[in-house]
């Protein structure tokens, strides 16, 4: 009975998968010379490349050349440019994203128009089901089917299907991001929080806008669609902000994240080959790398959007200055954590109910948040550990509040520094799990908590790591104390301009090699 039920479930899932494959097959099989040429011009949708810079400048020139009163033409231009930006990497997946966006648009219109509860529920289910289904098909099917296969074999059953080669499955860039945007839109329309967007180009732009398409920030429909209605004027202040954020993001990515990758990547790949000291350095380097990689990308995305007159959600707020894990999640990947809060944690019951129920909701939210990052046990465990830390912190906070002396000590400057350090250490140790292989993560933990010699040396002198860490810390302190904002207002314009040029040159000079992909592009 059990294998029959499982086989039926797998067959159903496979049926869905085959349907998706069949539907999009013509796009995949037909490789147009146009898209092939496009791919040569813009091989990957990375922001820190000269190809992207050229693409962005061309689109920018065309966008602002269109008269202001032709706002819809400008929007169409951005939609077409965004489609090409994605299609240059993969034409079939660009068609997939566009098609699902069109379906979401139609379902949204239907949700808005219908007054019957059953119909609205069905439409909501259809929209969420389609988005989650496609996400599962591309991102999770390999993981789930392989785990199921292994479990059935362990129990002595024949699964009736072969394991999948996960590495051969191409996951569309940004699928987790735009799926969440589409789901939040459908839910908001269902809740009558917003009306369905009537303009197709505006809705397409909401999902496809190239600065946030591949790696967020996860934008909310009310914030973004409102902006599409305002006619855009060329604004020098906004352009300055955009350029500044783009440069800052490029510096974080090239000069810090890629540099730190030189430290941590070899160690995370082969932890058994390195000594305990090298492993600890790699953990610190990875913490810096992932922050500068993702926040650098987000800064570039926000900066690029500013150049077109759009404001995206801020995604980071100096997360490594967080004094506890709750604070960390208010500062890290803000657009995701607020999404999870609004569309998962609160619908699950949030902090209402008993303490146990609140803890359960917290754990479930973080487990799913972990799974969102990747289809592997390690990501699930990463989310679980963070959930556990959040629950523990909540209980400790309540316990400490009843002890004024302890509470006072923890709030003192020394106590705060200690809390920041402990939070950073806990978060950094959790990052070890933030990789597809749980075996390698456990091997790295084993090295960290033993005294082992290595047979390989770090490829970079550790001085580079400490200088970078000190630089990041100083920058955090300067910004958090408002010194940067004060200086920014007072620094003469030419000095600021020279600063931009210096920032660009420093980013180029300190880039260790050709520059890699962004970590969050894998999600």
């Amino acid at each position: 009975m059990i294998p029959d039920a499982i086989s039926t479930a797998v067959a159903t899932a496979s049926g869905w998968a085959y349907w998706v494959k069949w539907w999009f097959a013509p796009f995949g099989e037909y490789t147009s010379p146009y898209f092939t040429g496009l791919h040569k011009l813009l091989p990957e949708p990375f922001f820190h490349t000269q190809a992207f810079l050229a693409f962005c400048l061309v689109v920018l020139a065309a966008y602002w050349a269109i008269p202001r009163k032709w706002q819809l033409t400008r929007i169409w231009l951005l939609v077409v440019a965004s489609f090409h930006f994605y299609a240059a990497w993969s034409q079939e997946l660009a068609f997939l994203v566009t098609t699902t966006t069109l379906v979401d648009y139609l379902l949204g219109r239907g949700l808005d128009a219908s007054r019957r509860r059953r119909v609205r529920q069905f439409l909501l289910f259809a929209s969420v089901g389609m988005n989650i289904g496609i996400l599962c098909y591309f991102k999770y099917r390999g993981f789930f089917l392989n785990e199921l296969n292994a479990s059935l074999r362990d129990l002595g059953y024949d699964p009736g299907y072969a394991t999948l080669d996960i590495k051969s499955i191409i996951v569309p860039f940004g699928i987790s991001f735009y799926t969440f945007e589409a789901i939040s839109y459908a839910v908001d329309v269902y809740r009558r929080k917003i009306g369905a967007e009537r303009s197709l180009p505006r809705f397409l732009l909401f999902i496809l806008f190239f600065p946030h398409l591949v790696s967020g920030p996860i934008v909310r429909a009310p914030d973004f669609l409102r902006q599409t209605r305002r006619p855009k004027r060329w604004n020098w202040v906004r352009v300055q902000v955009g350029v500044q954020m783009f440069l800052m993001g490029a510096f974080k990515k090239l000069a810090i994240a890629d540099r730190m990758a030189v430290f941590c990547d070899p160690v995370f790949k082969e932890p058994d080959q390195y000594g305990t000291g090298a492993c600890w350095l790699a953990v610190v380097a990875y913490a810096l790398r992932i922050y500068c990689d993702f926040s650098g990308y987000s800064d570039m995305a926000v900066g690029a959007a500013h150049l077109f007159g759009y404001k995206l959600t801020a995604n980071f707020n100096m997360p490594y200055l967080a004094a506890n894990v709750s604070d960390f999640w208010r500062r890290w990947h803000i657009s995701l954590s607020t999404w999870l809060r609004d569309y998962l944690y609160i619908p699950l019951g949030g902090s209402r109910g008993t303490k146990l129920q609140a803890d359960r909701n917290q754990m479930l939210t973080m487990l799913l948040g972990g799974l969102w990052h990747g289809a592997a046990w390690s990501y699930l465990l990463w989310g679980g550990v963070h959930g556990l830390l959040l629950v523990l912190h909540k209980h400790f906070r309540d316990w400490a509040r009843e002890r004024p002396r302890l509470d006072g000590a923890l709030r003192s400057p020394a106590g705060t520094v200690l809390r920041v350090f402990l939070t950073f250490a806990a978060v950094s140790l959790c990052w070890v799990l933030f990789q597809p292989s749980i075996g390698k993560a456990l091997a790295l933990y084993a090295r960290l908590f033993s005294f082992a010699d290595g047979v390989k040396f770090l490829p970079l002198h550790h001085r580079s790591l400490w200088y970078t860490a000190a630089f990041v810390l100083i920058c955090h302190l300067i910004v958090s104390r408002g010194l940067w904002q004060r200086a920014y207002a007072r620094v003469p314009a030419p000095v600021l301009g020279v600063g931009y040029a210096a920032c660009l040159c420093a980013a180029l000079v300190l880039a260790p090699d050709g520059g890699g992909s962004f970590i969050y592009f894998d999600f």
Partner: protein
Amino acid sequence: MNVKLALPKWLPATARPAARPGRRDRRRKAVRSLAAGVVATAALFVGLGVAAERSLYVRDPAYADKEVRLRRLEAAAPPGAVRVVALGTSRTGYGFHGLRVGDALNADLGRPAAAFNFGVPASGPVTHLLYLRRLLDAGHTPDLLFVEILPPSLAALPEGPREQLFLNGERLRRDEAETAVGYGFDADKTRGSWRRSVLNPWSTLRFALVGRVAPSFLPWQFRQDWGRNVDAAGWCTPLNPDLSPARREKAFAQAKIEYEGLLQTMTVAGGRPDAALRDLLTLTRERGIPVRLLLMPESDAFRGMYAPAVAARLDGYLAGVCREFGCGLVDARPWLPADLFTDGHHMVKAGAEAFSDRLTREVIAPFFRPAAAP
């Protein structure tokens, strides 16, 4: 517990925001700062591009750092001192102990002497020719020039000289890049690399620049500050003098991977490296610089990698070149035992001393002795 961050008091407190400037002021400041940014970026790019084309100190640290030392050594030497330069690869870099050679020559000849090690890793005949031209242009004319022959670098390969893997266009001036292309370097790659070094110098020359300011910021494979870690006469102290047999074996295995294939099959005559070597010897003949071709020491195991046919071809080729150009050949390959190498062909300190002493005694000093003069 309140999660609001309370930072230490010693940090300056958050300032009260200054009066917000008006819209026009903000606009003016934005325009000015962006314009200044564009001008400064252009100035920085053009400035470095021009500097790179004019100064090898920016473009090719491997050469320039050694050239600076050579100039200092020559300036410090009294007038009439004999000047010996050894142009070669990392084998020469680790093996030719210039200060020791200079002292020994001084004692032997009773004349002041300055010997300099111009060994640069991963070089070959094309690099040596270009470096010699630069040295001559800079006014360095040695009384005796050693040119190391690294046999694999002479291989006539269909894709061009092997050294093009290391001598990128960004290390060359425009005319040098064209010369390299003439000797079989990949034209698109070499010219493209040179072009990028002019148009986008901050990215293309970043390893050279960082290596100059903060070498430890670079992974070892990208470091170009080889010439900085050498003594006053250009000799590079081996990094790890105490090698265990296991490490030595591992290093030799790596050398084997790198060279064995070539040493089993390579041909020399008619290749582009051969043409470069001949042009180098022609240049020295025109300038009247005495030359000795030098085959650096190799361990027995390393020499075992040569196929007999390759060894015979190489010997015949070198004999022919020496005959044609009237230069001597010093075959130092069997001079040292295996334990004086790190990997079968790079010497440890004791090896460098033994080799330099013997080279001075048997080749350099006799060359300068009055009795040896024609």
